[in-house]
């Protein structure tokens, strides 16, 4: 067990999808670490590789066509990528749990929610059936479902989206995981319910001191809840920082753009800012810095167009990948 309070440490993760049209590099050289009991947020637009990163932690990348090409995922001091299938299954759902984006389809429609929760409890905790059902009911109560004893025997289609997401959470926490990966847990839900769910996650984190890897495209919900934030763009992390400094002083133009496009209280401008252009497809990444076609600074810069900047740890403890970020440039960098 590592002693620096780090639970999950990802180093140089590369994931590629080998399709008929070519190789899609969905995740390239991603490194970050999640501290015990803390929340780490992974932010980016859809298709930037954040979900793939999360699935890699669970080793749930569909193979074929996906494949983890390089990197390490150290969980509690052990590299998950080296574990046998059987051992990784003992980790999944037990020590690392995951909540998915679509509560409507993530539950199996042909089993009652109780059955689905009991399944995971019995699998990992070797409990008797009756006891497992008790735990399941308890879990449902914990995630704030009223009348859990009755709800436990209902089918997913009898519940609303928010309820189903609660069920997903109940299922995820039922084995008291050390790490909870929440992959866009609120995207598919109504705004009022979004807040409830996030509050629930906070509450649960406080109770059980688990770490959360929160994946979202919404920088707004990150602000109050995460300790550390990584911003991903086109399969790479472009900025990695603690939450406060990120919001105070974003370094990467992409982060800046994201922040500008957030609605703020008291904002009276005519229009919200939008980042021009669209996210490139993994099969057609531009050369150089992948953000340069959309970048207000780098769009005409020769170096941005040809050489891709790597993520670098700056002196202030933050990391960024932009030639123009203050303090980024090194003497041995190529000059154009």
């Amino acid at each position: 067990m590592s002693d620096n309070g780090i639970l999950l440490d990802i180093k140089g993760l590369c994931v590629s999808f080998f399709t008929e049209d070519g190789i899609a590099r969905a995740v390239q050289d991603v490194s970050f670490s999640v501290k015990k009991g803390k929340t780490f947020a992974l932010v980016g637009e859809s298709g930037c590789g954040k979900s793939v990163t999360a699935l890699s932690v669970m080793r749930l990348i569909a193979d074929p066509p996906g494949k983890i090409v390089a990197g390490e995922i150290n969980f509690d001091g052990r590299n998950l990528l080296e574990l046998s299938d059987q051992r990784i299954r003992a980790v999944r759902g037990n020590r690392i749990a995951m909540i998915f984006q679509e509560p409507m389809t993530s539950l199996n429609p042909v089993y009652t929610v109780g059955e689905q929760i009991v399944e995971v409890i019995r699998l990992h905790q070797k409990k008797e059936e009756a006891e497992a059902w008790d735990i399941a009911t308890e879990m449902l109560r914990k995630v704030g479902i009223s009348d859990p004893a009755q709800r436990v025997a209902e089918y997913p289609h009898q519940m609303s989206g928010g309820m189903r997401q609660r069920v997903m959470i109940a299922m995820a926490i039922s084995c008291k995981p050390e790490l909870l990966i929440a992959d866009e847990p609120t995207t598919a839900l109504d705004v009022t319910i979004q807040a409830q769910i996030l509050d629930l996650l906070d509450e649960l984190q406080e109770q059980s001191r688990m770490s959360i890897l929160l994946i979202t495209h919404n920088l707004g919900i990150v602000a109050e809840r995460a300790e550390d934030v990584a911003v991903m763009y086109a399969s790479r992390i472009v900025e990695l920082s603690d939450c406060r400094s990120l919001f105070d002083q974003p370094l990467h133009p992409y982060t800046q753009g994201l922040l500008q496009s957030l609605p703020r209280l008291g904002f009276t401008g005519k229009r919200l800012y939008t980042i021009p252009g669209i996210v490139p497809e993994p099969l057609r990444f531009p050369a150089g810095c992948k953000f340069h076609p959309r970048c207000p600074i780098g769009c005409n810069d020769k170096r941005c167009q040809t050489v891709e900047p790597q993520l670098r740890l700056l002196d202030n403890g933050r990391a960024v990948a932009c030639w123009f970020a203050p303090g980024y440039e090194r003497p041995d960098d190529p000059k154009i």
Partner: protein
Amino acid sequence: MTTYIIRRLLLMIPTLLGITIVVFAISRMAPGDPVSLAMGPGGMMDAQRAADVRAARMKLYGLDKPVYVQYAIWMGRVARLDFADSIKHHRPVIDLIKERLPITLTLNLISFVIIYAVSIPMGILSAVGRKKFLDRAGSAMLLMLWSLPSMWVGQMLIGYLCGPPLNWFSPAGLSSNDAEQFPFFQWLADRLWHLVLPVFCLTYAGLAYLTKQVRAGMLDNLRADYVRTARAKGLSNWTVIFHHAFRNSVIPVITIMATLLPAMFGGSVIIERIFSVSGMGLLAFEAVTTRDYNVVMGVATIAGVLNLFGLLMADIAYAMVDPRISFESAV
């Protein structure tokens, strides 16, 4: 659920009436009649005498009455579960069916069991190992099997596998000549051996079809979110496949099962012809070609009833497997 079933059963009555009317109308509209058929081309009868005999027989079988009266009489008998007598055989239609059904059922049940026992695992394996060599080779094989005309296959099998030099199977019949003298197990083995070829011909196309269905369903479900959830729970691969993905793929399999029920009763004319098995298929075929109206009506009505029951059973089974479907919403 009970009210649903009762409602469905009640709905069946007009449908059944419709079926009998359609079959009755079609079979009576066809030119030719059983009497002149029974009398044959010659009979070497004097012209006047032939006409008399014909009239007498038409009267005997009730064919001299107007068609709607005939229908009413027939319906009256059917309402009492009496399917009237065969004109050609002078025996109750039910007896004829009873006689032929065991053979057809034997053939069809065996092939039915084989189809399900083989195609479900094959479909699953193929879906799990998608785009791998075995899947591709298997899919190609199945498509090829599906594209083979059964009479061709049947005749080729008889031509090559039966008789010298290979002499592996018997080309016709269901048992050896002296099978009656065999002890039970030898008799059973002999019977099974004789069934191999017809069963194969009955099986391969359905096998290919069902495997494709299972594979497609499995592929759909293996991509589903809840399968990902199940994997994220740490369930083993096979648990995920059987407990989660397959459970959801069962639905199309059930629908096919329902359509197979009447097919099992009906038999296959072509295969029965090639392998000289006289089952339901040939009975129906001969009845149609000899205008044995009562047999035609009997067989078609029973097939129709089974068909409707198959559909009903499919719907019920559907609702049993899939909790999202409730009886109240479905009509």
